[in-house]
């Protein structure tokens, strides 16, 4: 499998993730939890959010990018606490996402993510970003000096303050140090898809059943499927509709598997959800020839299509 190599393809390794983690405004303290840092490693954010008009335009070219909702905290930490499966990259806004996608799919995209970041920033952002960026990337993993919090500022009423703080600790998917429910609150696993240039990470704790998980994965990896469709010239259609995407994902060509505690690769869906979460170490979406013949379900679909 080429997965580990592809992980390095855009220069996001664990080492550089540490640097990047300092950019993320989400970590309030030096996050010891590996979960958080590893998530940073797969983060596609290249710059600061909120300033990228151009990248927004790029984003619209890839409609699926909208599904990659940025990990705005509810209060906000790394992962979208949205239980319906709309999870996202952390730490950035949609603008970042837009930037990220434009980097990936534009001819300019280079392997050195760091270099790319500078380029992107200079072309898009107002001068202020540079300053802020400096402020951000002060030391690996270390936060910029925290300003003392002023009493009663910003002027938010207690009810709202407390509610937002509750949001932080609710949902169990929160990886931030502050207000989080601790290590048991989240369960990040890597998700790879054959043929995709990079992996994703998801928090299994925010889903409640297989349906939600599969919906989330669909959305997350739909871009690669889309790419595949157009590249293979599938009926040359302009916009491929959602049902076709689903078919593709659920169809004869895709199988969702996971690696369990023993290191074996298992088919997702056999065991009760709780048991699955307990034993799942990573996920893999198998495609192509490897997949055919593996899942009984996929065989049926194959027959149905023909």
């Amino acid at each position: 499998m080429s997965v580990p190599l592809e992980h390095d393809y855009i220069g996001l390794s664990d080492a550089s993730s540490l640097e990047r983690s300092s950019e993320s405004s989400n970590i309030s303290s030096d996050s010891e939890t590996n979960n958080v840092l590893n998530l940073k490693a797969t983060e596609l954010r290249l710059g600061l959010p909120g300033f990228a008009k151009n990248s927004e335009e790029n984003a619209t070219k890839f409609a699926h990018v909208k599904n990659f909702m940025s990990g705005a905290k509810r209060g906000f930490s790394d992962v979208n606490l949205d239980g319906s499966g709309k999870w996202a990259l952390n730490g950035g806004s949609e603008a970042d996402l837009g930037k990220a996608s434009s980097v990936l799919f534009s001819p300019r995209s280079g392997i050195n993510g760091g270099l790319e970041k500078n380029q992107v920033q200079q072309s898009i952002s107002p001068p202020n970003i540079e300053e802020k960026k400096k402020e951000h990337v002060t030391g690996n993993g270390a936060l910029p000096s925290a300003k003392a919090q002023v009493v009663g500022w910003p002027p938010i009423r207690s009810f709202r303050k407390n509610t937002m703080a509750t949001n932080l600790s609710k949902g169990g998917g929160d990886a931030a140090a502050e207000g989080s429910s601790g290590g048991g609150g989240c369960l990040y696993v890597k998700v790879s898809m054959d043929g995709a240039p990079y992996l994703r990470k998801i928090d299994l704790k925010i889903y409640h059943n297989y349906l939600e998980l599969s919906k989330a994965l669909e959305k997350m990896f739909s871009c690669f499927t889309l790419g595949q469709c157009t590249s293979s010239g599938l009926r040359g259609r302009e916009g491929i509709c959602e049902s076709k995407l689903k078919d593709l994902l659920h169809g004869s060509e895709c199988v969702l598997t996971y690696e369990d505690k023993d290191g074996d690769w298992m088919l997702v869906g056999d065991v009760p959800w709780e048991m699955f979460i307990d034993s799942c170490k990573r996920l893999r979406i198998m495609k192509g020839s490897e997949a055919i013949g593996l899942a009984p379900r996929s065989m049926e679909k194959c027959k149905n299509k023909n």
Partner: protein
Amino acid sequence: MCPFPDEVLERVLSLIDSHKDRSSVSLVCKDWYNAERWSRRHVFIGNCYSVSPEIVAARFPRIRSVTLKGKPRFSDFNLVPEDWGADVHPWLSVFATAYPFLEELRLKRMAISDESLEFLATNFQGFKSLSLLSCDGFSTDGLKAIATHCKNLTEFDIQENGIDDLGGHWLSCFPETLTSLQVLNFASLNSEVSFEALEKLISRSKSLRVLKVNRNISLDQLQKLLLHAPQLIELGTGTFMQELVSDPIKDLKNTFGNCKKLVTLSGLWDATPLYLPVIYPACVNLTFLNLSYATLRSGELANLLSHCKNLRRLWLLDTVGDKGLEAVGSSCPLLEELRVFPADPFDQEIFLGVTESGFVSVSHGCPKLRYVLYFCRQMTNAAVATIARNCPDFTHFRLCIMNPGQPDYLTKQPMDEAFGSIVKTCTKLQRLAVSGLLTDRTFEYIGKYSKNLETLSIAFAGSSDLGMEYVMGGCPKLRKLEIRDCPFGNAALLSGLTKYESMRSLWMSACNVTMNGCEVLAKERPRLNVEVMKDEDGDGSQAHKVYVYRTVAGPRRDAPPFVITL
């Protein structure tokens, strides 16, 4: 000499509701003063210490409804110590004798105990309507008393209070015989109530217009409630996220579609793209949508707003980003009020949220905007100037740049010109809250141009006494001035000597005012209460927190030890 018999005059005057108009009426002549006082049914007291309950009872013998406001507004942000005062009990004691037929009590920032609530419930037989906003000092036990004893209750509105939440049993205390409820709001109470009791209550309350449940009510449960109450005009939902076994989204959509009179929608906690669409059928009639507890993104918001063409008021979280605000600008041309709250106000390292560009987008698409509350982390003078040009009808402009003393992030200049453009262009401005790096120039503009300004909030701004002097020298209609962390000293304080009696109140904290200055003010103006709150540390000469207000009741007798009235 008044040509009308008293009865006729009273009858005519009884039709006047506005308390400002009534004040004017009472000044015409003695007959009118009397007719007005006998015909008045509702009294509004903006500062509970400006008058005593005895004086009120003596002047207005036939009151049925009282609105009382207590603590200074900055108490919402923990700037006022507990036990400061504003206890409602002295009022209730007097009302029990003077207004035994009192029907309505609306309190804001008052202290009310469980005993007081029980007193209220048991001493006023016809009591119908209770509204508590930002109050504290009570627990759900007090609510039990109200629920149990008030046989004719029409309104039970409990909002954002410092309440000791001991459980949801209060709801089960509403008797089975109670069928008159019109307003039920317990959205900000966290404990779970008995759904069975709630469902029964809703189903027998045929006149229910307003229902706002708390977050513990699930979508399934909400569905059931709505089936009992399709006549609702205002709805606050519970949580909008749950794992569903079956797929009742269609049912939910139908149910919402059946609520034909719904114009206000709030709650929507944990709203996700999965369930948010169930409200679409109700959106076309909505005039007020409160999404300030729903962590939506721009895409979800855009989809939602495309159904909400008639929106007049919209409250959001800044998770929607500038892109979400673009959607607001393009979907809601009738918008008059926008409030954007920060999802994460205290994480200073985060750079999410909204910027000046979102605000500008809205101003382009919503020229009728008159009320804005906007929390952001960056702003420019140019953007605000554009916004002022696009929306000249602002009556309330509250801009909070969350980092104190932050300049225009592009030009690095102070934000003086921004607020200058607002006060110059928006002549109807009544309320202004400023932020960012501001010099005295901002206040020069405010003093010179804002002829209709009534409320002004200043924090971390100004360069010298001049700033406040400009304001005190201008702003003819100023009523409430609240200042914190500004370099205004005694000269500034005393520059308002002639103005304070025409104002409701002045708050100054963490400024440069000293006890001497306050003493001078108190001496010169005996009809003002000049209260200084002692700071624990620091020397005795600095007046850390100063609260000045006009009063006909003299110095208050219930001041705690840390409050000195000069």
